[in-house]
């Protein structure tokens, strides 16, 4: 691999031992995938800071880099951590577990990363421009950055993410290169009737991710009213059922003004038509539990946005919660702050809704709650729920989720 003089210096340890180790990992990765050079990135997003996901090895790794005095060379944001940093005690998180998180958080902060603590950094973090070369981890954020924004990142994961940040370099391979961003599979959605809801787009993403696996789909037939929040749900779902790192939506995403451009003039290798029946089947697959008894309703995977939380507040206005079921909304501390100032968060909290920031239901310690079944409008939560927590998940739309938590007599029109 061809390295610049400065990159050679990093590899030789002239920029410190921490940089040297990070460079060694980046060069190994590049060699493995046949990259002939490295390129600079302007920013990074770190996924490896989630203690519950990576365990003790992840903590040892982070503290080792810290002890080698590694520092990030480009602006670097941090993904969710495994607890609400301010309110973890209120949520019943085990103190010993919280202590591990404190160490993990401290290690990444010591390396100079920015504590946005969110899995949706594209809504409250460093937002790249179209075409910008970046190094992001967190599968939903990778897909959103590549597809919706048109920035360029590979599917980085735990540990390479911070190595990219420390060196400010990535191998010039994969989705960093224009020619590798061409569509491969045509997915035609012209014959389905779209619903204006996060769960509909989550189901569609779950289906398409499962169908195309790691290929780049070009999806046509989408309505113009699709929002960033719809696409957020789509991305999280498609990156759970598949290994999708980039999609194009004709007339919606920036590299797909038309079908031909999205395929870079090439022919699709495969064509798939999405039917209403396929959507229904995909929706059924997302529930591992039945309706009926639900212990809690979970919203915010990926982290809920300002409009999403405002919508929930509007749906619950003039309603009382049942009291025997929890409603937890996961969001970023930025969104939490804005909506605290605007009065929406206090309004929801007064009703007994928990607004949980910095973290994620499937990546924390919640043993004390003894939940058995939860309801969610997130396909990613539903997909990982049993494997990560042992709980059953009921996948439902936002209306059904809200009906599950407020008093029956308070239904609209009654």
């Amino acid at each position, binding site marked *: 691999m061809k390295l610049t003089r400065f990159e050679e210096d990093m590899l030789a340890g002239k920029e410190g031992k921490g940089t040297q*180790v990070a460079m*060694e*990992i980046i060069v*190994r*990765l590049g060699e*493995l*995938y046949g990259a002939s050079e490295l390129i600079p990135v302007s920013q990074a997003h770190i*996924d*490896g800071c*989630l203690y519950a*996901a*990576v*365990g*003790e*090895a*992840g903590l*040892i*790794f982070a503290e*080792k880099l810290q002890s080698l005095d590694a520092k990030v060379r480009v602006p670097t944001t941090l993904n969710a951590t495994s607890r609400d940093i301010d309110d973890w005690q209120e949520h019943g998180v085990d103190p010993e577990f919280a202590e591990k998180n404190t160490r993990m958080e401290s290690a990444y902060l010591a390396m100079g990363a920015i504590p946005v603590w969110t899995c949706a950094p594209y809504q409250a973090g460093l937002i790249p421009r179209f075409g910008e070369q970046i190094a992001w*981890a*967190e*599968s939903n954020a*990778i897909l959103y950055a590549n597809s919706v924004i048109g920035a360029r990142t*590979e*599917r*980085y*994961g*735990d*540990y*390479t*993410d911070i190595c990219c940040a420390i060196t400010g370099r990535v191998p010039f391979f*994969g989705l960093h290169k224009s020619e590798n961003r061409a569509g491969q599979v045509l997915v035609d959605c012209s014959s389905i009737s779209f619903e204006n809801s996060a769960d509909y787009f989550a189901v569609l993403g779950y289906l398409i*991710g499962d169908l195309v*696996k*790691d290929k780049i789909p070009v999806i046509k037939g989408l309505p113009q009213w699709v929002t960033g929040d719809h696409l957020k749900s789509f991305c999280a779902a498609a*990156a*759970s*059922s*598949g*290994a999708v790192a980039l999609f194009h939506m004709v007339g919606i995403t920036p590299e797909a003004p038309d079908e031909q451009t999205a395929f870079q003039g090439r022919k699709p290798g495969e064509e798939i038509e999405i039917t209403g029946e396929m959507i229904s089947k995909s929706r059924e*697959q997302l529930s*591992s539990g039945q309706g009926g008894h639900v212990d809690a309703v979970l919203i915010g995977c990926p982290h809920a946005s300002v409009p999403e939380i405002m919508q929930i507040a509007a749906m619950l206005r003039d309603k009382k919660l049942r009291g025997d079921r929890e409603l937890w909304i996961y969001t970023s501390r930025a969104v939490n702050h804005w909506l605290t100032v605007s009065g929406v968060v206090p309004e929801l909290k007064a009703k007994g809704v928990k607004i949980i920031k910095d973290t994620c239901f*499937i990546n924390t310690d919640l043993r004390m709650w003894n939940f058995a079944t939860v309801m969610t409008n997130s396909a990613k939560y539903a*997909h*990982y729920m*049993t*494997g*990560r927590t042992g709980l059953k998940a009921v996948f439902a739309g936002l209306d059904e989720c809200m009906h599950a938590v407020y008093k029956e007599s308070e239904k609209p029109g009654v």
Partner: protein
Amino acid sequence: MSCIIKANTVIEGDAEGELVVSRQTFSFFGGFDFNLGEVVEPKSDIYGADLKGKIFAYPRGKGSSSTAGVILEALRQGTAPVAIINVESEKILAVGAIVAQVMFGWNIPIISITDEDFQKLISGRHVIISNGQIHLF
């Protein structure tokens, strides 16, 4: 009947053990418990399988970017498979293995084979991986 399958080396190394084969895409995050060494995704065709000390074959990866983290912790705890066979090995998995080598000196060989050869793999068979080849017994 024993046979030899030629493989592409993703992460170098030799290994020997019993084969566990899934025909589905797999995510270590949410699919594998690093404390138990078991497959915990109920929809998996090998749900409940013990991967500890086994040679784990699945065609392709999927899902979360935390897979690298899960692999590293499994290696630390000694609950990881001893080698992985894919048709296409994804970067997130390879990274976990590279970091394990560079930072900790732990080794998990990863190799890839053709779709056609993958069909020859059957759970329970004894396998030796050596010099970029799979010996299937």
